[in-house]
């Protein structure tokens, strides 16, 4: 057996590391000027390794992290989630919402030197966004025609309005592929999926599977002078402790998407050479939730679901399990989506007595052993935080007389169990809401997904004709105010019925070197490019070896 426990070892290791980092190498000369400096190689943690580098059919997180640097989109998103021009310099929406015109930037070239034109956008819309892109299919369904009056103008004609498309037009949300390399090929198996050719600030150079991936500065980038960095090196480091060590040592200077466990964050944040940042994820706005299987004989009673909602102390969950990297959720539409979020929905303050009263009312008395009934819980197999969320649920429900058995499995088994076999009682998961509820939120509630066995859709098995009607109407509503009203009505109903219990608005975090400037400047930063990033002062630790 180990002479020390792992926890004690980590504590000791942290102390050692802390002592080490106060060394003189980190007291860099404060030659701080505000003008960005050209040059340098940025090492980035990429975990897990992506399957493909082109976000057309597979929009997994690591794919988008790399692709955001290779592909520019029509727009990018600010911290306020408003679109800002990128490849589209400007756009107009006709008053009836049925025509949208994009004016494209001139003089942009693909990485292979061919000019970027309106026909690339048209081809991508018709062959990717409308067909195989998993998030966009529904949003672009009502595009009836795409016209390209000249090389730098794209006109979208709609049979019905589709306002949410303005929330997905960045480089990964609506990826524009080079038509000359993709036309007439099998898109899913095109070899360029793994050696992408884009218009973005960094050019694909090399991918050594299992080791690293290199992008180089695009000297012909349309935004003259950018990017500032010469090279991006994405490193695959599967072990969390090794990731923490690489960040601490300065071998890696940028690490998005919670690269280390929460218990290490506080320690890393205290180091003078590192910075922990929670901005840059606004475009995702992830919400953690429990799906309550409404086909379960106990959970089908709305009073039982409401009792569970009252029994879970979300503030404590945020503090104890998520180390403060989460904020109690009021509604399935997170508060970051200010235009849609409705704070007046029925809420379920932590109140075990009320929970017990609701359970009594539903007719589930405590037995002689104090237990009313037993449920199982399958937690999302994405690491320790979700397991501990499950343990928190178990404790919370035990207080009100519900016994919970926690089950663990890998992601293949989890998806099959929850979404295909529907053999579960309570599951945990999170969905990115994106700036429009149409994209990430309604999929949890729309009954049209039931029976399709599609991951991360209506897990609770909820069917409500009124909710379905609101969702379907909002999808094609051309008036923004009327849409917002539909979504408010939607939130009121689903929070009364609680088939899905929203828990926390998660705050993902990025750890980066303190002297790396301009790395977090947008609401979609983590899926966008590092064209604005630069090293302030000598990057003392970086270029060594790795």
């Amino acid at each position, binding site marked *: 057996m180990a002479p020390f426990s*792992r926890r004690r070892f980590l504590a000791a290791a942290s102390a*050692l590391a802390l002592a080490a980092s106060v060394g003189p190498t980190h007291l860099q000369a404060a030659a701080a000027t505000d003008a960005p400096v050209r040059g340098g190689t940025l090492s980035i943690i990429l975990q897990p390794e992506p399957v493909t580098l082109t976000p057309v059919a597979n929009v997994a997180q690591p794919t988008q992290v790399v692709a955001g640097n290779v592909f520019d989109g029509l727009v990018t998103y600010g911290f306020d989630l408003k679109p800002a021009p990128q490849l589209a310099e400007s756009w107009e929406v006709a008053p009836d919402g049925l025509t949208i015109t994009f004016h494209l930037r001139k003089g942009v070239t693909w990485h292979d030197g061919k000019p970027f034109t309106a026909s690339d956008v048209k081809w991508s819309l018709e062959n990717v966004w409308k067909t195989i892109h998993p998030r966009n299919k529904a949003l672009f369904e009502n595009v009836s025609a795409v016209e390209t009056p000249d090389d730098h103008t794209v006109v979208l004609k709609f049979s019905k309005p589709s306002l949410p498309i303005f929330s997905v037009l960045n480089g990964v949300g609506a990826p524009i592929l080079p038509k000359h390399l993709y036309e007439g090929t099998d898109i899913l198996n095109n070899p360029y999926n793994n050696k992408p050719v884009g218009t973005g600030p960094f050019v694909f150079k090399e991918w050594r599977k*299992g080791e690293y991936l290199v992008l180089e500065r695009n000297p012909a980038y349309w935004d003259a002078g950018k990017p500032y960095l010469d090279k991006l090196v994405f490193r695959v480091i*599967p072990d969390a*402790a090794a990731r923490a060590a690489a960040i601490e040592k300065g071998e890696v200077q940028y690490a998005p998407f919670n690269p280390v466990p929460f218990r290490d964050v506080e320690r890393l944040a205290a180091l003078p050479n590192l910075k922990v940042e929670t901005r840059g994820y606004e475009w995702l706005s992830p919400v953690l939730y429990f799906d309550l299987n409404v086909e379960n004989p106990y959970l089908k009673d709305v009073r039982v679901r409401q009792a569970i909602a009252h029994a879970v102390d979300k503030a404590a969950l945020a503090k104890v399990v998520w180390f403060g990297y989460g904020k109690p959720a009021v509604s399935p539409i997170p508060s970051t989506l200010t235009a849609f979020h409705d704070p007046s929905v029925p809420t379920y303050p932590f109140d075990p007595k009320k929970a017990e009263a609701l359970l009594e009312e539903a007719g589930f008395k405590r037995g002689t052993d104090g237990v009313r009934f037993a449920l199982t819980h399958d937690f999302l197999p994405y690491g320790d935080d979700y397991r501990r969320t499950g343990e928190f649920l178990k404790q919370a429900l035990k207080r009100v007389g519900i016994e919970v058995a926690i089950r663990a499995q890998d992601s293949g088994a989890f998806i099959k169990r929850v979404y*295909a076999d529907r053999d579960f009682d309570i599951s945990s998961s999170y*969905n990115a809401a994106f700036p429009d509820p149409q994209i990430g939120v309604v999929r949890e509630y729309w009954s049209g997904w039931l029976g399709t066995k599609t991951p991360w859709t209506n897990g609770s098995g909820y069917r409500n004709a009124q909710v379905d009607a609101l969702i379907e109407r909002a999808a094609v509503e051309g008036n923004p105010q009327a849409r917002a009203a539909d979504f408010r009505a939607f939130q009121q109903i689903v929070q009364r019925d609680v088939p899905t219990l929203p828990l926390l608005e998660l705050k993902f975090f990025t750890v980066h070197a303190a002297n790396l400037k301009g790395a977090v400047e947008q609401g979609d930063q983590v899926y966008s490019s590092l064209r604005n990033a630069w090293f302030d002062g000598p990057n003392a630790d970086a270029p060594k070896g790795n």
Partner: protein
Amino acid sequence: MARYLKRSLGQIAFVIIGIAVINFFLLRLAPGDAAQVMAGEAGSATPEYMAALRQQFGLDQPLYVQFLSYLKNVLTLNLGYSFRQGMPVSELIALRLPATLLLMGTSIAFAVSVGGTLGFLAARHAGRLADTVISSVALVFYATPVFWIGVMLVVVFSVLLDWLPVGGMASIESGLTGLGYAADVAQHLILPALTLGLFYLAIYTRLMRASMLEVYGQDFVRTARAKGVRPRRIALRHVLRNALLPIVTTLGVQLGSILGGAILVETVFAWPGLGRLAFEALFQRDLNLLLGILFCSSVVVVFVNLAVDLAYTVLDPRIELS
């Protein structure tokens, strides 16, 4: 001897095909398929996308059709195609093989030579201080979890002292060639090989010591002593050689598992070996890739077993193969 080899090879072919067939059905027991895993990773998916994936992967075919095409592949030594990685399985294995062989070869060589020597010394000085020290150290390494040694070495030698890189197999984009490249890889190899080697070393030390002490107690050693052979010669010629058989057996078992690599060490040190590839393939339900790796592993195991049998006859001429 020739007859033995001929019979063995026949058995080997039979065993390998048997293992391949069992693997095929065993792996199908894992819940969920590659399409579900990929759709799950994507964060969102459509039923059409999943159907397209299943068709591409051949998962829409009935099981017996999948099995027959797999069997045909095995018999023609074709390992199939990994749709997830977009590469033929044989190519993927070939890419990762050198890293695995280097890591395992170095650590096993280190463990056998150093461990064997320590065990030898401990046995010669049984009961004295040297023996106590060696045995205690071996016990500590044997009892310490591999990942713990690995993380500790990283913290001390990479983060604290800054002597060695945290992980990976070579410096990225260094442009090094020839000797410079070899030196660079060697630098990256030290910590993972040491981590793995220290665990194995403990095994060989303990094994060698126990095995030698057993031989020391036998009659022919007493006879040798009685006729005045010097202790050094007894140890080397009479005892060591006889004590080697269990070492060879253990070595055989270890070499057999060489392709599986050391998942923990490869993960901690981001070493691009086969163990990690197999481990990830399991979670991704990339069954073609996993079957390919398992097939290669089974081939190695049976041939190493054969080699061990042959080695016995060399070490101990009394053993005959028939």
